[in-house]
Structure formats: C-alpha cells, structure tokens
C-alpha cells in the first residue's frame, strides 16, 4: 500500500531564501505521485512556484505569476532530482550566473542605475522590474567575460542599491529603504517571545529559540585602501574610526594601536580610494551581531522576505533600542530594535500551494496534493548593521566597479589582487588642457589615452578657431587623475614628436620635458645651427599662428594615478 513517503535521506521540505543571494529549496513528493506528474518535472526548463493555494486551472500564466508576486510567493528553477520524488534548485537568479558579457560594457560619464540595469538585463527571461535610481556611477566599466550575476552585484554595490528577485521573473532594484521600508507603527513585523498575533498595524511572530551572537574577532579601527602603483611604491588612503559595541582598551587599559584592514584596490584613483576607506571603516569598526531565531508561524513568506526590516524585542537578550521608536505592543510600551532579515529558512506547510511551471509558462501543474509537508517552524537569521552573511564575492577581479560599495548595510570588505606591479588597464577620451593657446571661435580640441602596465599612450589634437593664435610656449596637461610616475620624475624626460601646423605650414615639433608632474612641454625644433636645438613656441614661432592651425601630440609616458 502506498503511504506517506519517508524520505530515506531524512531531508526536510524547505526553502532557504537569502538577501541578494541564490538560496535553495527542496520539495519532496509523496510516493503515490502519478508518473504523468513526475514526467513533467524537467531540469532547468521548469520552475517550482510556492505561495498561497490557488486553483490555477484555466488561469493565464501572467495572472498566476501576478498573484504569486502579490502574495509574496517564491519561485525557483528545478535543478536537481536526487531521486524521482525530490526536487531541488535555486531561485531565479541562477539564470544570471555564468552568463558572460562577451564584450565590455563601458559607460563613460555619469550613468544612472536604471541605465546600467538596462545594459545587463533582460537575460534568459529575467527582466528588470521596478528600478529606483541610486547614486549614478561615473566612468564605470564591466569587462568582457564577466558574469551578469556578478556585474549586477557590482552595479548595486557601486550605486548604493540592492536588488530583490520576484517570483514573476523580474528583479526590483533600488535603495535599501525603498525596497525594504523601515518598520512603522501601521505596518511592521515584530518578533518577541509573546504568542503570534496581530495588534494595531503590528504583525507579531513568536520566537521559539532566540539566540543573539556577538563577535568582535575581526574588528578593525582603520581601513587602508591600497591603490598600488608599482612593486616598489605603495600608495594608500586611510580612514580611522573607534570601534563601537566593544570596549576599545588594550591589556593595559590604554587606547590600542590601530587594527588595520587592508583593502587592495589597484584600479582606483586617489580620491576614490579615500572614499572607499571612509565607506568601509564604519562597517568594520563594530562587533558583528547576528540574531538567529526560530518561530512558529504560518505563511511567513507572505509577510517577510530576506532584506526586510523587522522589529525584535527581548530584553533578556539585550534586543531593544534605548533610543528607539516607541510602540504599544500587547498593552505595554516597548522600544524594539530594528534588524534586517538576511536569511530565512521556512518549511513548506500544508497551507501552501506548490506548482510547477514548465518553460514559458504554457503548462502549469498543481503539485500541491502530492507534496510532503512539514512542521511549521521557521528559522531566521537577522542582524544589525554589520557584515552581511552569505554575500557572494565578486569573482576574479574582472569587474572594475566592483569594490566595497556604499550600501549602508554592512558587507564584508573585499580585497582583490590583480597584477602585482603597476596600475592596471584603463583608457578614455578627454578634452585636453593646453597652455598658451588662444582658442578663437569654434576650435577643435580632442584627445584619447590608454594606460597599460603603467605606460600611458596619449594622443591630443588642437585646431585653432577663428581669430585664435598661440601666445607663448605651448604646454599640454595630462588627463586628470594621472601624473608622471614618481620615480621617473627628474630622471626621465619624455620624448615624442609633435606635428605643428603654423601659418598653414607643417613643422616638426617635440615634447621634450615635463614642465611639472602633470604637464608636458612642447617645443619646436630649430635647425639653424650645426646641431638641432629646441626652441619655445610663440605667436610667430615656428610660424605666425592663425585660424586653422593645429598641434598634434602622440607620445608614450610612464604614469601613475594622481
């Protein structure tokens, strides 16, 4: 006789959701599930949807997905069948992993979050949902052969936003407090040791096992961001902060020497390095606090998803906020602490619906009658601002903009080494700054540069406009953010030929010297003597400069970030 199937592996029927991470799920089907149902469960090309019970017969795909999204359901790709009756997989973000950008994505200037998301999505049926802009990203580059999943994480880091995968196959992006609003007295989930229940606008969840851990093993009081130049010379930016949540005294009772966290960021300029340092240290200069708890409440997935901010109150565990907002809860005035849910593991209980969506949604199968259900105990991981758990690291340093970002919720600082010597590749166009050239009306001024292994190949061209001329010795500034490499200063003179068109005649000129660490000196060549010398340009040297005359420079020089 067929009976309740006992999973021989003793596995559980659960879903684990993680903030900005793939999570996983397991669904077990009973032993008497018909073969016709089992045969429709195909790997990759089908997904499992879990939400409130629905009668899906005759419903359109879009309507089922909309209902799922509205009630806070879950959808995951079917990835594994350890045995014919068990389905395992990850959430829809799996579709973004290992899908690589074949070419670089370059967005010079200031680019909005929305524009960046449009560059990355849609992929494999996963499209953008509601996008709210964060900080615009300046001169961002995603290199070729970068996973869309990693690139999305990096864009979110750099833009100070987060993302949330929705069960209808869209991804919502926006600042953390837009996607996951702070609790208010009219709408919040509150976790206490009191029984579950709703009161006013607060939805109560009973915590069964509540554990609050604090860990200061990896606490830092200074962040050092190294934007290395060469193997011999190291440039870095620092930011210090006295750690909170700990008593910052050494064994003699004095203020300790700084405990420094080194962040390797070879791709950045000095100002950005300083910004990274000041963004990283607040998150690392505190003890890591994590609260794990179990609760017994049904349908938690409809009420809480990872990323949400919930209220927690348990005086015995120190979970209250002495300066926090007051709430009236069960007849008493309390000041709960606000924590973020980072991970949630919840069981598939008898009051949930489980469905199979095959490929494009043309076929939906209701698996609910065949699913083995679980005892309703939910495990939560919530934490105060600190380091984020389960945060996937950026892979291989391939993403230029993927540095410890500016989101206010803590995440682990990354260190990443690319080449061990000089500044890594960079390139761009720029509007050159020239000295002693009068523009006139309608000049042409353009330039481009690229840096590889600490060598900058630089091209710049200026065409004088109507009524313009040259007024003295012409100089050319390096693109902003770059300077002559320090050990080269004073010992190396750059040499490169320059084309000077003065008075309509083409002359040979030369870059022969660094006027300063960021400025090149341009001269003309004088052949009046036996040996050629270099002479400063002027309004009449090498010719009388007038409309249409030009200066073209092409040179390779040793540089470092300024």
């Amino acid at each position, binding site marked *: 006789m067929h009976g309740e199937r006992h999973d021989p592996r003793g596995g559980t029927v659960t879903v684990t959701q993680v903030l900005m991470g793939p999570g996983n799920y397991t669904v077990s089907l009973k032993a008497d599930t018909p073969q016709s149902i089992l045969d429709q469960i195909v790997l990759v090309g089908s997904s499992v949807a879990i939400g409130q019970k629905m009668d899906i017969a005759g419903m359109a795909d879009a309507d089922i997905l909309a209902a799922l999204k509205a009630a806070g359901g879950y959808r995951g790709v079917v990835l594994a069948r350890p045995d014919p009756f068990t389905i395992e997989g990850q959430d829809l973000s799996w579709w973004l992993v290992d899908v690589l950008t074949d070419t670089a994505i370059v967005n010079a200037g200031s680019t909005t979050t929305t524009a960046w998301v449009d560059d990355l999505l849609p992929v494999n049926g996963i499209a953008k949902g509601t996008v709210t802009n964060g900080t615009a990203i300046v001169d961002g580059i995603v290199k070729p052969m970068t996973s869309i999943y990693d690139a999305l994480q990096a864009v979110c880091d750099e833009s100070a936003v987060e993302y949330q995968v929705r069960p209808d196959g869209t991804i919502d992006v926006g600042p953390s407090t837009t996607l996951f609003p702070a609790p208010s007295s009219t709408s919040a989930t509150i976790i206490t040791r*009191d029984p579950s229940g709703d009161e006013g606008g607060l939805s109560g969840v009973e915590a069964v096992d509540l554990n609050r851990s604090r860990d200061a093993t990896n606490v830092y009081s200074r962040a050092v961001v190294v934007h290395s130049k060469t193997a011999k010379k190291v440039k870095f930016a620092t930011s210090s902060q006295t750690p909170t949540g700990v008593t910052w005294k050494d064994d003699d009772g004095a203020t300790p020497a700084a405990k420094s966290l080194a962040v390797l960021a070879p791709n950045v300029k000095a100002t950005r390095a300083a910004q990274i340092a000041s963004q990283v240290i607040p998150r690392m200069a505190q003890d890591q606090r994590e609260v794990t708890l179990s609760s017994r409440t049904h349908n938690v997935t409809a009420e809480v998803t990872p990323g949400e901010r919930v209220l927690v109150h348990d*005086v015995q565990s120190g979970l*209250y*906020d*002495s300066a926090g907002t007051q709430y*009236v809860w069960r*007849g*008493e005035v*309390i*000041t709960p602490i606000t924590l973020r849910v980072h991970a949630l593991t919840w069981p598939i209980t008898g009051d949930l619906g489980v469905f199979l969506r095959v490929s494009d949604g043309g076929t939906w199968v209701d698996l609910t009658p065949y699913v083995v259900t679980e005892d309703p105990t939910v495990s939560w991981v919530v934490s105060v601002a600190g380091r984020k758990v389960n945060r996937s690291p950026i892979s291989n340093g391939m993403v230029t903009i993927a540095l410890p970002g500016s989101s206010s919720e803590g995440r682990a600082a990354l260190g990443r080494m690319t080449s061990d010597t000089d500044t890594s590749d960079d390139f761009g166009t720029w509007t050159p700054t020239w000295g002693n050239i009068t523009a006139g009306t309608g000049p042409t001024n353009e330039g481009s540069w690229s840096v590889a292994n600490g060598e900058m190949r630089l091209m710049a061209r200026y065409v004088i406009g109507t009524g313009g001329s040259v007024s003295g010795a012409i100089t050319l500034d390096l693109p902003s953010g770059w300077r002559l490499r320090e050990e080269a200063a004073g010992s190396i003179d750059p040499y490169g030929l320059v084309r000077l068109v003065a008075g309509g005649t083409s002359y040979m000129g030369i870059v022969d010297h660094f006027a300063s660490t960021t400025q090149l000196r341009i001269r003309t060549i004088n052949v009046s003597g036996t040996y050629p010398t270099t002479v400063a340009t002027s309004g009449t040297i090498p010719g009388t400069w007038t409309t249409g005359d030009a200066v073209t420079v092409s040179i390779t020089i040793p540089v470092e970030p300024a």
Partner: protein
Amino acid sequence: MTLTFGRAVLPDPSSVSSSGAFVTFSGMAYSSASTAANRAAEVQMLEAQVLGMVGNPDEDAFRVVWSAESKWDGFYTEIDASWDWVNDGSGRVSVANWSITGRRVTDYASPRIETTGVAVVQTNGVSITSGTAYMTAFSSADSAELQKTSTVSVTRARSGEDGTVVAGTLAPTSSAAVGSFSVSIDPANYYAGGCALEIKGDDDVWYEFVGRDIPASATNAWRLSNGIIRIGPSTLEVYDGGWQSIALKVGGRSTGAGNIYPTNIGQVQTSLGTPTENLCPSVLRNDRSCVVLKFNTAPGQTSTSYNGQTLLTLRAGQTLATLAFTGILNKYGVMLAGGTDPISAFTGGGIATSADAAGNKWVICATQPMDAGSYTDGYVAYLSTAAAVTAWGILGVGWDLFGTSSSVLEQLVCTANVTTRVVAR
C-alpha cells in the same frame, strides 16, 4: 491545613514524593462551602488555578507553602499537573484527585527574584521629559536582601492591602533606562504587593486567576488589583485602611461638547448611548508585576468595522491603571462618579477638587492634554484633541495616595517593561 501552590489554596496533600530535584504533591480537592453549587464553583476555580501553572508563559516559578510542614516550602518551576474529577454522587463536578509536580529551585525557600526592566518616557504632549517609572513591588517584610543596579531606585513609601511594599523604580529620560532589582522573599509573602487578575466564581467569591486561559464566565466578573488600587469593568477602588470605591465608565466624544456615551470597560454599544453586551477580556499578560487585559472594542464605537481595542494594564506598586484605546477617531475619556467631588483640571488631566474621607483624591490623566468637566452622572476628563484612527490614546486613572496629580501623571508617562525571574543567589 492547606497547601498553597502558586495562588491555589488546596486541602492537605495526601502524599508528597521527591525524585531528585522534583517533588510531587498529590491529594484530593474538595470544598467545605455551604451549598453544593458553591462547592462546585470553588473547586472548579481551584482547577483553573492549578492547571494555569502548566506551561505558564508569564511566570517562571510558583511558590509552595504547606501549613502543616515547612520542609517543602519554596519555589518550583517546570510545573506539571493533573486534575481528575471524581463522581461523588452529588450530581455536580466538585471533587477531584490532583497531582502537581515541580522542580524545586535552588536555595529552596529563599532564592533571588530578579526583575529586569527597560523604562521609557512615552511620547507625550504634557511636557514630561523624565521621571520615575515603576518596575514592580514586593512586600517589604523580606526586603533585607535587596540587590539592584545603580540605575534602579527603591521606595518604601507605599502600603496597601498587603502592608508596606518596597517598589523598584527606574528614571528614564530621552533615552531608555535599564536596570534590575532583586529581592529574596519568603514564599508566603511572594504575591504580596504584586498584581493579580481576579475572577468572581459562581459562588460570588473572588479568586486570583493564573495564566491566560480565561473562562467566558469572567465576562463582567473580573477585576485587576495590586493591593493599592483595584479596577473592574465599572468600578475604581483604592485601599487606605479599607477599600473605597467609586463608579467608573469609559467613553469619548468625537466633536464638540456633546454626549460622551459612557460604557463599562469592554462594553459594546450598538448605537451611541445604548450600551449592550460586555465582552470577555483576553489576557495578554498575567504575572505579579503586570497584568494586561484586551477587549475588542473601543469607546464610541458602534460598528465592528473600526477594529477598536481597549487595553487595560495594571502594574505592581503603581497608584494608577492604564487604559489604552485605539480604532476610532475619538477624544477618549474616563468618567468617575461618587461623592460630590468636582473635578479640577491640570495639564494632562483632572483631579478631584476635594479629598475623600480618607484624604485621597482620584485622578484621571493622559499622555496628551485633556479637558475636564462634569457629565450626567459625575465628572469626566477627556482628550482635548481626538486621537487618530490608528494611534493609541493612552489614559490613566488612579489615586494620589502617595503624591500629587503630577506624580500620578508621571506614573502614566514614564513606563517600564519588566520581566521577573527566579535566579541563583
């Protein structure tokens, strides 16, 4: 001879057995009341008091005092109890075999009872930025072993039905005050000075209720007491040599100076001015430091569509009870009647103009400004500005027994959230 286990006063046990730290008492429960109906009522209340200790969410230890033999007196946790009714031929359910097992707490008769609290100054419109918040109170007879954190103050200037009590207080300001306060107490005096939820049995006797599983018979037959003040659905009492009571109603007015539609606490009205049934309260908390009742209606509400709630809270050591209302746009108020004391307004409420025979004045106050005046049957203070639909209107009603109207208002605005546990010495 009686065995007092928690709040239940049982006849002598017929056997007591120990196994490790666990002690099991068993015996028969019966009553010596004069009528069969009263005997049944009493023993059924005993059952509720005993079974309410099992899995109790609010109290972690219960006291035992056996008048015949003090050897097992002390505090017990992890209570398990059974109650088997026997047919005694009377045609009523009035005799039972009971058995209670508990783990005896270390230090036997005199462990340390620790109360930890977080106190805040409630957001208010009556210019209070700091003050004294009461945590809990114990009989001062055993206050010899008093330990406390530096943030806690102690006051002994309170006495009620249980004699003089020592109360622990915190002093919150713009941020919360946190502290703990411990006493070592004789089991016989454990509940003295604390709160109790009392329910009147069918025998018209008041019994102290244990736990949260309140029977429907508690409708309109309940009261909260902390030995100093007592509040019921329509009465407010104070103890000063004896209990003196006045009539109490709650109500509200939506606009202007119209009628205030008084009702009992937790009484619905189908139309304004027509109160109908009393609702049975739900118990949100029931322990010696604090009792909270909830009613699914609010003053001025005539339809079930407003999600109205009334919360009644009483704390040990305080001279006031807190009423919190929500659900309907209203200027919530409390009406008191009795005697001929007119009401004198003050910022945040009203106080009886002249004292009663025992020298005490009743007080109505709120965390927001109130207007005061008279109504048909007495005197009223109600919120000057209507509370918003989803906000709580927090009012207090009590007596100025140990202070003035300001100290009573302060007790309302400065409030502590406490837990009491039995801990190691």
